[in-house]
């Protein structure tokens, strides 16, 4: 039956109604490889899903994109769930995506590397943001599944090492959709409700990459980074590395290792403190003994004999000094005596009396001065002649000069 011609918009409107009321197309999951991935500045995301022979345009509105658990990249195979939408103006249809699942190691590794690169560029893994893990915590918060193996291991190890620290188990989902939001919320809540917490341990036991994926989601990484309380990540086994491990203040290889890292062995500390106290007493005893030994060295008898030895030495020294002074004085005296004797001899030799004894006399003029010459004598002058036994007053009769 032929239909009356209709307008384009009427046709598109009709098709739209057919498509959007179809129960299958209203909620369909499509497997395909991402190509032409574009992030619009508005926050909406556009890409195509393709297989070997066909492709479909896909659209993720910005508000839904934020809840997508994986970083997307061209070449990744994904399962996109959504509904088929018709754009009436253009007559094109697309898959309006509500959720994306990624499976398989290869695809997950692509998402992992992309997020790692993105957060690393932002500096979330920088060493400078790592908070130190307190060495003596009083409260540990464990954010994990209440029923998992991880919480049992952690509690067991903590109890074996420490009977002081309080343990707060904050239950959360650790796998599947919603787990990442749950973990992130838990970290935030512990910071708000239990600010006295010294360390947070978050993690879970081993599993496949899909099972551990919550710890590879951006929302968890951001909440660990924002936590004021230091966070130890403890996800899976030694070989499992997650984004949470990179952003955590400390990565523990396993939940057991996290418990060992987080709390000190109190029983060892108790022993150690006892030993230190013993040492304190022993060392004091030793020091006092040591001082006593030194005091014994300062014994009074010792001091007296030391003093006696010293005085004897001083006596000998002073005797020697006195002798030295005496002999020096004697030497000086005899030197003076010799000098005096030789002066006396010279004086004796020069004594005028000696000449007089040989018959000479000294003639003094009127003024009593030795003359030694006739010049100036005139007859009638009074002279005095001195001889050893006295003086004679004379008068000059005449003067004869000898030539």
């Amino acid at each position, binding site marked *: 039956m032929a239909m009356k011609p209709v307008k384009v918009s009427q046709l598109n409107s009709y098709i739209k109604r057919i498509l959007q009321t179809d129960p299958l197309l209203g909620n369909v999951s499509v497997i395909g490889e991402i190509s032409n991935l574009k992030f619009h500045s508005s926050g909406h995301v556009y890409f195509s899903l393709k297989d070997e022979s066909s492709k479909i345009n896909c659209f993720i509105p910005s508000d839904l994109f934020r809840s997508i658990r994986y970083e997307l990249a061209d070449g990744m195979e994904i399962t996109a769930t959504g509904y088929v939408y018709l754009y009436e103006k253009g007559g094109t249809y697309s898959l309006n995506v509500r959720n994306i699942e990624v499976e398989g190691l290869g695809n997950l590794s692509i998402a992992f590397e992309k997020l790692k690169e993105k957060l690393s560029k932002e500096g979330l893994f920088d060493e400078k943001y790592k908070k130190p893990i307190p060495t003596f915590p009083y409260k540990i918060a464990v954010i994990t599944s209440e029923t998992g193996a991880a919480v049992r291991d952690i509690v067991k190890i903590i*109890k074996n090492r420490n009977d002081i620290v*309080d*343990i707060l188990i904050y239950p959360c989902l650790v796998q599947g959709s919603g787990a990442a939001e749950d973990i992130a919320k838990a970290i935030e809540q512990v910071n708000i409700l239990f600010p006295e917490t010294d360390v947070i341990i978050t993690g879970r036991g081993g599993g496949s990459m899909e099972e551990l994926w919550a710890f590879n989601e951006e929302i968890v990484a951001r909440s660990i980074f924002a936590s004021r309380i230091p966070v130890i990540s403890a996800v899976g086994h030694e070989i499992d590395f997650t984004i949470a491990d990179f952003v955590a203040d400390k990565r523990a290889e396993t939940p057991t290792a996290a418990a060992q890292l987080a709390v000190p062995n109190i029983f060892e500390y108790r022993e150690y*403190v006892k030993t230190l106290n013993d040492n*304190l007493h022993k060392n004091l005893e030793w*020091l006092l003994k040591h001082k006593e030994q030194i005091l014994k060295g300062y014994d009074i008898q010792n001091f007296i004999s030391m003093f006696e030895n010293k005085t004897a030495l001083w006596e000998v020294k002073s005797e020697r000094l006195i002798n030295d002074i005496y002999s020096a004085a004697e030497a000086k005296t005899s030197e003076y005596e010799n000098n005096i004797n030789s002066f006396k001899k010279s004086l004796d030799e020069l004594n005028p009396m000696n000449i007089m004894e040989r018959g000479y006399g000294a003639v003094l003029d009127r003024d009593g001065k030795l003359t030694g010459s006739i010049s100036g004598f005139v007859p009638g002058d009074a002279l005095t002649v001195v001889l050893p036994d006295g003086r004679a007053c004379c008068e000059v009769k005449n003067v004869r000069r000898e030539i």
Partner: protein
Amino acid sequence: MENIKKDTLTFEEALAGLEKSAEALRQPNTTLDDAMKSFEAGLEYYKKCQEILGKAKQKIEVYTR
């Protein structure tokens, strides 16, 4: 000689203080006066350590939302 702020002392500080006090007594040239001060400080630190280590009142609770 430092004053020991007994109430605000952390375990790490008390332990370090005890270690230091014990070590100070091993120096032969420590004066008797200093030795007695170190010893007394050491006893205070030891008491503080004991006080902290003695509080074995571990609480394990599961938070319910």
